[in-house]
């Protein structure tokens, strides 16, 4: 890895190239059109080569950085996500079973489960406990509905200081916004596919 040195040398080379170009301009005026065009083509190629070199340096440095940067252990992360995500789902199942045992219909019980988990997540967010849970559980806390609730509650708390309209109002969906937009769009698109399928079959 010699990005530093090479980059400096490249820059120097670039400057020299520029100087040479200036000197050549006078000569070129006396040249035939064809030769001039040919030379411009050469210059373009040189520039292209320089850009390519630069890209290679950037790529080389990035690869080096990647090699020296420590990473979380994927297996440990997956295990923790499985544990925490699983526990959240067990909690949801418990709420569901309780609701069903109280005689609620399947759909109503499902709604109550979602609402309970959202409340659970929002309360933990308010108490600043959800970030600690997420640090351990990773995607296990992100994927269930609790992660979604956290991503809405956290900006609401943070931006409350900037007012009800420009603070909470404008910024409450800064994290969840993309999920809402593209989630809605994806369900619409799939609905369209289903409808077309049904018409054809």
């Amino acid at each position, binding site marked *: *890895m*010699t*990005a*530093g*040195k090479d*980059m400096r040398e490249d820059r120097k080379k670039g400057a020299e190239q520029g100087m040479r170009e200036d000197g050549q301009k006078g000569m070129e005026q006396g040249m035939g059109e064809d030769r001039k065009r040919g030379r411009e083509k050469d210059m373009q190629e040189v520039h292209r080569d320089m850009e390519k070199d630069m890209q290679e*340096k*950037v790529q080389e*440095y*990035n690869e*080096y*950085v990647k090699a*020296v*940067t*420590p*990473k*979380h252990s994927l297996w440990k*992360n997956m295990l923790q996500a499985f544990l925490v995500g699983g526990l959240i789902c067990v909690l949801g199942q418990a709420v569901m079973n309780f609701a069903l045992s109280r005689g609620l219909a399947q759909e109503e019980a499902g709604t109550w489960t979602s609402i309970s988990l959202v409340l659970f997540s929002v309360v933990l*967010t*308010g108490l*600043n406990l*959800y*970030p*600690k*849970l*997420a*640090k351990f559980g*990773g995607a296990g*806390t*992100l994927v269930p509905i609790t*992660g979604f609730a*956290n*991503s809405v*509650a*956290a*900006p609401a*708390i*943070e*931006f409350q*200081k900037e007012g009800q309209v420009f603070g909470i109002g404008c910024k409450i969906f800064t*994290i969840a916004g993309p999920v809402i937009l593209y989630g809605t769009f994806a369900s619409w698109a799939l609905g369209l596919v289903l409808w077309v399928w049904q018409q054809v079959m």
Partner: protein
Amino acid sequence: MSEFLERSHTAGTSGAASQAVGRQSIGFTRPPAILGGASVVGSKEGDGPLGHLFDRVNEDPLCGKSTWEQAESEMQRQALALALGKLSLEPGDVRYLFAGDLLGQIIATSFGARDMEIPLFGLYGACSTIGEALQLGAMAVGGGYAGRVACVASSHLGSAEKQFRFPMGYGNQRPLSATWTVTGAGAFILGEGEGYVRITGITTGKIVDYGVKDSMNMGACMAPAAADTIAGNLEDFGREPEDYDRIITGDLGAVGKEILLKLLRERGYDIGRQHTDCGLEIYDRKRQDVHSGGSGCGCAAATLSAYSLDQIAEGHWRRVLFVPTGALLSTVSFNEGESVPGIAHGVVLEG
């Protein structure tokens, strides 16, 4: 200092009485002094290895205010007031204030300096800001434009996270290369004559961009800039790393440190023995869960004030190169796919 004046190859200067040295440095003929400094930090920094050295530890992250931004301004005000108080000075005794922070339109500075009524130069150099402030302050004093100036920089975990990353309550996993923004501020009073530490030279950094786009790996973004400034300093002054007892970078963290040492080795400089990083000094990485280390304007500023200056003043270190580092990212440039350019400013401190 006269040896530097004889060096004729200074870039873009008229020569003769110039204090410019080499391509990007200044060697002061009458070195300005750091008359005094003060540091203010939050509770996590107070709990760290340097905790007992800071002048003030605010246990309340809001510093008695109602927003993160106000809290950061309050820390700037506290740091400057403490620094002035140590020297029994009034704000009116200071001719210029060079100050900056990480927030958009440097609002922590605008509101922190509001009641001081000191003519202000507001600066932005990301986490390298205190280096930029000390350089300009030293130039103002060294050039005879001011008898006394103040230099201040701050950062706050809450305001920085809110602006650059996610709201505090949002749960996510930070990569191991990520750094922890220091809640803290440092203030320095510079002046003519005898102080406890002198600024004998400066090396102003240029923007160096090796095309890293990962804003959660700022050490890798800034290390090339730090290497460039350190090499520039050594070349301009004709020194070797051994001429410095310490070379102290701002907030490269563990990842950035490794890269810096390697980049400088490739340029023929081994600074392994001298190098320390404020981001690695201010926290106990094993105990305090800060991943790669500390970062932010307050990291270098508070560490220099609380720890490094005293080491120089007490004679443990004779000559030090202080190089705060900045990652010049914005959420806009990041979202638009740009890389994260780095900058680093060198300040030569001598006892």
